[in-house]
């Protein structure tokens, strides 16, 4: 047994989980503040300085509320669903390289060679939480929310998976750390001006990569049920959707699961398209622990920027109609992603 490996892994798990949960709490707070500011309101600004202790107050409220279970629910699945909504999102983060190295320890919990496949496999389990919640609630609106969610997530998973294929055609490896390594050597995938910017092939490749990025971003929005695609929990249509029948911490788990999924989605986008923990001019952790810490900071700064983008989009766009959503998923993004693969293949044929 390699005790060093086990010990550092446990430390990394504890640290990352704690940090992600913290980030999630503050993502909820940020969502409320950002939405408020975009609508010329103020948002929560009373608890602590500028409302920074609001997440604590929210958690206290969730924990102290009555654990009410409606009479007609399928109890086992009713209790299982919130856990299933939360856990897959947390597990996804385990394969993402969130930093270079710190004291020689690689800053990724599980550097597995099927990286992105693992992410897709686990992330798609998230749909079970929502579908089970909709089904077990034994109520009309949650049921509609669950049905909508299942079809939406399955539809957008196609474009999600197809959009990343060009990257792996380029990198030749499913391991997420090697994707980051490739971007350090050749510049970020959607930013050809980083690194060796005179290379024409790189600029040419950036076009399909940008298309991939947009498709992937939109598909992630749909996967995490964020606003232009939040039909499963459309408040105005479904009275809250799949979590209508949930209260207190069970509702809290759905709510937080959604935000963790958002953080995980942003982390995947950052890893695949935005260079992971790399920032031009900053060396990796082998040059000292300070640089290792800076790499981690850079990664989470990028993640936060993407989360802000998600919020920005949410408070700008209206919700799609159901048929528009399906049309968009099946007739546009699916085709665009397919053609994009072809495009990358042709470009690669010429420049290699």
């Amino acid at each position, binding site marked *: 047994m390699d005790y060093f490996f086990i010990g550092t892994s446990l430390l990394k798990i504890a640290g990352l989980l704690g940090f992600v949960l913290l980030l999630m709490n503050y993502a909820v707070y940020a969502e409320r503040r950002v939405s408020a*500011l*975009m*609508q*010329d*309101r*103020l948002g929560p600004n009373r608890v602590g300085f500028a409302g920074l202790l609001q997440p604590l107050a929210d958690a206290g409220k969730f924990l102290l509320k009555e654990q009410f279970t409606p009479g007609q629910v399928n109890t086992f699945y009713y209790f299982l669903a919130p856990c299933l909504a939360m856990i897959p999102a947390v597990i996804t983060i385990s394969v993402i390289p969130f930093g270079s190295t710190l004291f020689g320890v690689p800053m990724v919990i599980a550097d597995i060679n099927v990286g992105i496949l693992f992410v897709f496999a686990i992330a798609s389990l998230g749909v079970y939480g929502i579908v089970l919640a909709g089904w077990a609630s034994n109520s009309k609106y949650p049921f509609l929310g669950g049905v909508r969610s299942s079809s939406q997530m399955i539809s957008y998973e196609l474009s999600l998976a197809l959009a990343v294929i060009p990257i792996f055609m380029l990198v030749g490896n499913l391991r997420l750390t090697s994707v980051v390594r490739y971007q350090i050597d050749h510049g970020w995938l959607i930013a050809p001006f980083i690194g060796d910017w005179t290379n024409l092939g790189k600029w040419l490749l950036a076009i399909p990569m940008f298309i991939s990025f947009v498709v992937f971003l939109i598909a992630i929005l749909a996967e995490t049920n964020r606003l232009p695609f939040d039909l499963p929990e459309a408040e105005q249509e479904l009275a809250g959707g799949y979590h209508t029948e949930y209260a207190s911490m069970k509702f809290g788990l759905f709510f937080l699961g959604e935000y963790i999924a958002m953080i995980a989605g942003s982390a995947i986008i950052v890893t695949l398209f935005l260079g992971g923990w790399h920032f031009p001019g900053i060396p990796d952790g082998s040059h000292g622990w300070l640089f290792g810490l800076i790499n981690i900071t850079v990664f989470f700064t990028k993640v936060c920027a993407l989360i802000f983008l998600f919020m*920005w989009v949410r*408070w*700008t*766009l209206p919700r799609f109609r159901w048929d528009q959503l399906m049309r968009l998923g099946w007739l546009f993004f699916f085709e665009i992603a397919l053609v994009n693969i072809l495009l990358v293949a042709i470009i690669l044929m010429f420049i290699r």
Partner: protein
Amino acid sequence: MAITVPRPNLNWRERLYLPAIASGLVITLKHFKNMIFGRTKVTMEYPEEKWDPNLPDYYRGAPALVRDTDGRVRCVACQLCEFICPPRAIKIIPGEIPQTDRFAKVEKFPDAFDIDMIRCIYCGMCEEVCPEQAIFLRKDYAITGFTREDMVHHKDKLLEIGGVMHGVVLKWNQRK
């Protein structure tokens, strides 16, 4: 008869939606930026900032009893306000003024005058109906209390809110 809703013919740029989405994002970002730099000032943060100096004279806050310039309670306990009050928030127990008193002509005074502020709907009908101009809606609006009993304004509290009112209609005025 079915109505055909005309659908606008979108050109390719509009059908792409992306320019519209981008301009929408710019609008929200502008609002966000203006709020961050404090250029938009819409919200008044209530307990710290108040609008009290700007309240108009006709503002309908808590009802209150007033004294006249002689220091006498204007109310003559006619109980019209008690009668008119839509939510029946007012309760008056009249008392008799003895014949020997200087104001014996007035006959009655309110021995107890309670307004239940949980019931009061600030409609101002008591002020409208009062023949003596003895009850007025003042500008106090933050009426709080820990119990239901706390929320009942008794006579002394009402007089405290009301203060002194200068006016002309006085039944007990010497000249009348």
